[in-house]
């Protein structure tokens, strides 16, 4: 057993109101640059719908993820190593910018520069790709809230799989939101597809990253990812993807999308898993068994054997302790309400979802029944085949049983807590009907509904202490501390390697370039780091110190 730690996320879809705050804040933090105008590391899709990029779930077309060969071995669906190199000059499975959408801006200047005239001047849309005036016909959430549903949802690849009983009549339509980020898979097919070896999984926390210095722009990762969550920066010619906000989680702060989620529906925590068993679990022949197979790879952090193995694998004590408090582990195992997104891609995704009960409750309430009575709800989950089948195609490769079990637990929680809130005696039978105890249901309620900040986010900080630095004479320079003379390169402050996360260096550099007078040398060190700012007060160094009048 080789134990590795993985930072994972669970999203509670029942609480998502589709406000796109996560998408917008993520974009502001990471992709508000040219070349990635069309990129949303975090996007929110309305389901049923085509998704972003359009119909990305149709793997017969895009061929992302893994498949089993005839001999039962894992292989990349888009073709193995030789095929990759043979098609490297023109990737036949690369989505075009139109499959995402053509980003645009508006001719805002027109509003000011137009001469006095009878009609109000108009800011026309202009393509950010060609620079020409354009007609906006698609975007990352064009079919938001089932917009254009009768025409557009028919192309939903997930809906196509449950098509025999699909009802697209408006009054019978159901919908929910699906926020998506990179899955940071245990068996990432994007990493396996990268010819340069620039993509990697961090061995400490399992975050999948692109080394921007080693990426050569061969574009195979875009094809390899079945979730289409690796993007090509068309200006720099390099791949970019969700970073799980590593500069933030390294210091114990939640990702930007989690922090800003108004519904508090995201949970962050550690999962311990056995890296030796990943490939074996990913090659289970039956797609419907993949959900259980992935669960079998994840380890119980309370098991003494696992703890011993984790220590032997070099996992620090505070990480072990964080794994034991992990909300993710609770939601997947103790409460059993979180499910992986598309396990049939065989990548072992690590962003899991609590499927929404709301469509069921809504339909039930619409028929005039009491939508929160346990009996009614249990019955409705079983009879409302369409939402369950649809959810099963998303989360369990089409097996309705696990979805049904999760929805029954969520329904039980609603009914049980209603009794509590109305001051009636606790009905233990509701809890036992779904294989839980009343106490467990209340704990789950606390985690899902109250969702206290420090219970939602259990993030151990990265270990930056350097034991080897104690032997400084052998391994390091004793002046290499922050603000020390060793920090600058040999030719002054701006020489040497650039700071990896450029917010602080960006500000320092801009300040210097736009200053009217030479900056004082010591002021250049007044760097500000907004990524680690917790929102309280004014971060040190954000504003230049007021200069004395002379």
């Amino acid at each position, binding site marked *: 057993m080789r134990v590795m730690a993985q930072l994972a996320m669970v999203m509670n879809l029942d609480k998502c109101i589709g406000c796109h705050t996560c998408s917008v804040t993520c974009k502001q933090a990471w992709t508000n640059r040219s070349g990635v105008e069309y990129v949303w590391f975090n996007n929110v899709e309305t389901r049923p719908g085509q998704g972003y990029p359009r119909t990305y779930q149709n793997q017969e077309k895009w061929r992302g993820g893994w498949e089993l060969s005839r001999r039962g071995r894992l292989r990349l669906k888009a073709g193995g190593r030789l095929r990759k190199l043979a098609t490297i000059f*023109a990737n*036949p499975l690369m989505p075009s910018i139109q499959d995402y959408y053509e980003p645009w801006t508006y001719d805002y200047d027109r509003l000011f520069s137009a001469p006095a005239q009878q009609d109000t001047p108009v800011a026309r849309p202009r393509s950010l790709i060609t620079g020409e005036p354009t007609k906006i016909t698609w975007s990352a959430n064009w079919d938001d809230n089932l917009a254009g549903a009768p025409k557009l949802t028919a192309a939903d690849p997930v809906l196509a799989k449950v098509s025999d009983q699909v009802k697209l009549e408006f009054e019978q339509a159901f919908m929910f939101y699906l926020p998506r980020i990179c899955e940071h898979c245990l068996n990432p097919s994007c990493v396996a597809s990268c010819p340069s070896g620039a993509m990697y999984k961090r061995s400490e926390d399992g975050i999948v990253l692109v080394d921007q210095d080693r990426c050569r722009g061969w574009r195979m990762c875009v094809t390899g990812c079945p979730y289409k969550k690796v993007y090509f920066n068309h200006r720099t010619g390099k791949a970019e993807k969700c970073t799980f906000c590593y500069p933030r989680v*390294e210091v114990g702060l939640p990702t930007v999308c989690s922090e800003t989620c108004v519904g508090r529906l995201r949970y962050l925590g550690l999962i311990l898993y056995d890296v030796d068993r990943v490939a074996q679990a990913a090659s289970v022949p039956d797609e419907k068994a993949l959900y259980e197979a992935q669960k079998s790879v994840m380890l119980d952090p309370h098991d003494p054997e696992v703890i011993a193995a984790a220590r032997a694998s070099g996992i620090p004590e505070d990480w072990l302790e964080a794994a034991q408090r992990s909300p993710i582990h609770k939601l997947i195992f103790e409460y059993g309400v979180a499910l992986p997104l598309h396990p049939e891609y065989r990548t072992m995704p690590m962003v899991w979802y609590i499927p929404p009960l709301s469509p069921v409750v809504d339909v039930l309430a619409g028929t005039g029944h009491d939508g929160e009575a346990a009996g009614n709800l249990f019955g409705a989950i079983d009879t409302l085949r369409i939402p369950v089948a649809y959810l099963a195609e998303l989360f369990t490769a089409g097996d309705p049983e696990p979805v049904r079990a999760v929805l029954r637990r969520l329904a039980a929680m609603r009914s049980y807590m209603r009794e509590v809130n109305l001051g009636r005696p606790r009905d233990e039978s509701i809890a036992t009907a779904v294989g839980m105890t009343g106490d467990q249901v209340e704990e789950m309620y606390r985690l899902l509904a109250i969702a206290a900040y420090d219970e939602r986010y259990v993030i151990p900080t990265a270990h930056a202490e350097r034991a080897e630095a104690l032997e400084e004479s052998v391994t390091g320079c004793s002046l290499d501390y922050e603000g020390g003379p060793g920090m600058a390169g040999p030719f002054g402050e701006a020489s040497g390697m650039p700071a990896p996360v450029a917010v602080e260096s960006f500000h320092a550099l801009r300040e210097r370039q736009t200053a009217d007078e030479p900056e004082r040398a010591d002021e250049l060190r007044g760097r500000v780091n907004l990524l680690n700012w917790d929102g309280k007060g004014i971060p040190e160094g954000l504003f230049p110190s007021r200069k004395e009048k002379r």
Partner: protein
Amino acid sequence: MNALDTLLWVVAPYLALTVFVLGHVWRYRYDKFGWTTRSSQMYESRLLRIGSPLFHFGILVVLLGHVGGLVIPKTWTEAAGIGEEAYHLGAVVLGTIAGVCTIAGLAILIYRRRTVGPVFTATTRNDKLMYALLALTIVLGLAATLVANVLGGGYDYRTTVSPWFRSIFILQPEPALMARVPVLFQLHAASAMVLFAVWPFTRLVHMLTAPIGYLTRPYIVYRSRDAKTAGTRAPRPGWDPITRR
């Protein structure tokens, strides 16, 4: 042999080689981020899917042909039982096919670059210079072959150009060998030297990092969080330095 010959066939090749090697070292050290193919497939894929493989596979065969013709001495192939006639026929046929493929591919790619709006917008001045030099070198090379074989009875460059080429690398340059070579061959060699000199500063650098290692490396790459580059600040000492203020 005059000063011009020395300049062209001794000084220039060493200059080009030096710039080629040192340029790559410099670029690799200081501009790893810029080291990319800068693919434009996102903008346009229909023409690229014909033009790009045609060009790239063509130029790879051309490269192999140059290795065979320039690096391997005539005596070796003759010892292996391949006579001048057989070699020449093979080289001309294979070289012409590959050359025509390369030029056709390049023509499609340049046409695409000029006519597809987003692709043209993404073309830098550096790219234009590179395309011009690349096209010039390839056209001159194919022209030299065709002219020599269609007008004359072929030209045995393996007694002149090839020994000169090898003489550069064994540091005993023999410029005299190049002095009486047909002018098209001379022009081809000269433009190639210019191309090699600008090579490290263009997108062509992607050739040096062709991902051969992909064939042997394990699929999933794990890397440890690098203590030096991760995070945003350097580790602090566990004590406060004594302030001098």
